[in-house]
């Protein structure tokens, strides 16, 4: 019997797969009603068992459960055709925050020193307070997407949405970190190019 965390994990993966399909340029040009049908189809295909496991479970085996940040970004893509909004336009601020955090977190978790920042995610009061303080500061700065991601990630962590008991796993994952770092590098190299 599956645990609830397996279902939430697969939901995250299928959300990402749907968002990736919707990012294909030729697909983006399809009419809105076709996009909705296509999204539904991607969800359905992702959950059809192949050799005993849903397709999404193979992806989950490789990448693990996706952070709430990744799922929020995926749903921003999925909902874009039916909910055009300018209120979540600060995506670059969020990705900058993710990239900077990833540069600090991932090398340290590979054993560079005896200090392990990942440990902070196990209910460290100072760390949790800092995350929430950034969320509140982002609200005052009108960085709505950062507020949404941090609030939902913290709530998901408190509710045990995934198997992980570590807050870091709800905040970011290697996929969104790679995407954010790639985007950051692309933007910086563009600035360096002569006009």
């Amino acid at each position, binding site marked *: 019997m*599956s*645990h609830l965390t*397996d279902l939430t*994990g*697969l939901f995250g993966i299928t959300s990402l797969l749907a968002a990736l399909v919707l990012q294909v340029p030729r697909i983006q040009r399809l009419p809105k009603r076709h996009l909705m049908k296509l999204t539904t189809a991607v969800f359905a295909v992702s959950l059809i068992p192949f050799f*005993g*496991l*849903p397709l999404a*479970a*193979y992806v*989950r*085996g*490789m*990448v*693990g*459960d996706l952070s709430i940040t990744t799922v929020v970004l995926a749903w921003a893509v999925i909902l874009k055709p039916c909910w055009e909004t300018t*209120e979540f336009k600060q995506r670059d601020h969020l990705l900058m925050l993710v990239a900077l955090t990833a540069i600090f*977190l*991932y090398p340290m*978790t*590979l*054993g*560079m*020193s*005896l*200090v*392990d920042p*990942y*440990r902070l*995610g*196990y*209910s460290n*009061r100072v760390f*949790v307070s800092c995350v*929430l303080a950034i*969320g*509140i500061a982002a*609200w005052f700065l*009108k960085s*709505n997407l950062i*507020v*949404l991601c*941090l*609030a*939902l990630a*913290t*709530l998901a*962590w*408190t*509710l045990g949405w*995934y*198997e*992980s*008991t*570590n807050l*870091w*796993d709800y905040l*970011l*994952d*290697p996929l969104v970190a790679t995407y954010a770092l790639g985007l950051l590098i692309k933007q910086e190299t563009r600035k360096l190019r002569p006009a």
Partner: protein
Amino acid sequence: MPSRLVNLRGFLLTLILLACVAAAYKLSRHTGPALLQIPAIAQSNNNAELTTHFVSSQQNISTHAASLIELKNGSVRAFWFAGSHEGAGDIEIRSAVFDGRQWSKERSVINREHTQQALLRYVKKLGNPVAARAPDGAIWLYYVTVSLGGWAGSSLTTMTSRDEGETWSAPRRLITSPLLNISTLIKGTPFTYSDGTIGLPVYHEFLGKFGELLHLSTAGDILDKQRLSAGKAGIQPVMLIEDPQRVLVLMRYTGAPPMRVIATRTEDGGQTWSAPLKTDLSNPDAALGGVVLPDGRMLVVANDIEQGRDALSLLVSSDKGVSWRTVYQLEEQRARPGTPDDFLRNTTKLALSTDAHISDANVYAQSVQRNQCVAEHCAYEFSYPYLIQTHNGDFHLVYTWNRSFIKHVQFNRAWLDARMKERSDVAPH
């Protein structure tokens, strides 16, 4: 200002404030660090006794990484992994029970297919199993699973048994790393804290190679993770708990020569750890096993050599791990590589000396030849020791015997004391 935007801003403020309240509630329920617990051990009978057996009996397969747990009736249950070869998809976790005289027939506990069905994610192979006893009496089995790449891509999976290992719950995944949850492996003996929570010595192998300590709640959730070493030098920590405050951790050395066991120590119940240092114990990049006796002496089983795994020693330290004295040579085949025929003959003798009751020692030797001979070169391997002391004071040791079988050595305190007396003239190192 459009009302839709005001509504969104209000919604986000409510959401972040709700997150604050929920986080405060969760943090208020988080338990602090607990003291380490020393198991109660009785004095065993006075007749010096050492017996050896084979735990596993399957022929012509690869067998490795055994661990033990004492059952409520005083029996001992072993777990190990076996399959066509290490890393194969047909590897399964197997188990057998020792009733004090002989081992039961081995049987499968879990395989790759059942694991991936239960975890709802692809699993490529299984690895090291280690069991722990929870305060409610349940046995928690932790085992390595790999979905991506080699052993460096490992994650931990766990399942529980409420009938001493006869039946098991569905496996569930432990999330221990932010990097695709890869590279947490297990080998060392778990221990309990005074509040019933479980300590699990684990290690990391992707790029860095270092020891870690997981602290799990009675429900099996991870409460904390501590790093015991850094860089690329030490894995497979073994906790030698002297008292509720003091612990010596020995680790397999994975760095450059000279090859020595790595050690770190705590004097405050695991709040802080000393910088890892090399000890005087040789180590050929191989696992160790160990326990602390009620009188404070430390007992370690290790390949106390710089190369190969063809010798296995039982060592004692009476000075809290500063110096070590070999009290018994469990295996010694350093001078006997030989041709495949010599290897077959010698392995047949070794199999018989391990367990005189086996009727097919030659078949045992052929299984070993299959795993340990490449062309004209054969190599002995005695590795991955796992040592426990049961409540009656007896010691039980299991280890990989030539990658083909699991060997069990049982001895008591009287035997150990007699060996120590005999070897008292040997210089410590």
